[in-house]
């Protein structure tokens, strides 16, 4: 299974990520998820979220999750980008792509990845209210 993991303060360019995709002829399903910063957090109107990441541990934990996924589903590739620092409302903080032969495993693996990330990957958010 190929994996590409990016933690970076740069904006997530979904169009460029789509263009950079390369999949083999046996693959029939591409599931992507974008997690976008919402304008309200805990009843307050916010302008952005400041994401703090323990980068080395986050990478380690993502790699552990990738390995679990590889053992459980026939996935060709996973690409994951998590933006760090300040992410304005309406922009994605997370982008995940899972490529597989069939859609059931692509959907299952993508959701599992996000579920596990939210349990284990050391990234935290601080809403900015201005």
């Amino acid at each position, binding site marked *: 299974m190929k994996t590409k993991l990016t933690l970076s303060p740069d904006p997530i360019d979904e169009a460029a990520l789509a263009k950079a995709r390369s999949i083999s002829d046996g693959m029939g399903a591409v599931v992507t998820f974008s*997690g976008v910063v919402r304008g309200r957090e805990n009843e307050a109107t916010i302008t952005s979220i400041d*994401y*703090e*990441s*323990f980068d*080395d*541990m*986050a990478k*380690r*934990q993502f790699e552990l999750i990738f390995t679990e996924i590889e053992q459980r589903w026939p996935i060709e590739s996973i690409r994951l980008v*998590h933006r760090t620092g300040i992410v304005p409302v309406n922009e994605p*903080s*997370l982008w995940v792509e899972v490529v597989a032969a069939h859609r059931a495993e692509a959907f299952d693996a993508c959701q599992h990845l*996000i579920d596990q*990330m*939210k*349990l*284990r*990957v*050391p*990234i*935290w*958010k*601080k809403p900015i209210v201005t």
Partner: protein
Amino acid sequence: MQSKPHIKLTVRFWSYFADVTGCRETAIEAEAGSTLGQLHDLVCKQFPKLAEARNSTLKAVGLDYQDDDFVLSDGDEVSLFPPVQGG
């Protein structure tokens, strides 16, 4: 009577734990053979506000999560943090 041997540990605080403690990391000495749970006790004594979040605190040594009974070694880097919120 000899004093018991000690180990030197680095404790790192993440997210609002750094605000509560006023620091991102601190050096702590503990008795050799101390567990992660015992270190957590020491830290909560030093920073009482962390004791309030004790049950929801996540703990890692290096880059891996560890349980309270994990035995620490000299030089270990321990991280304490609140529940994660990626995504």
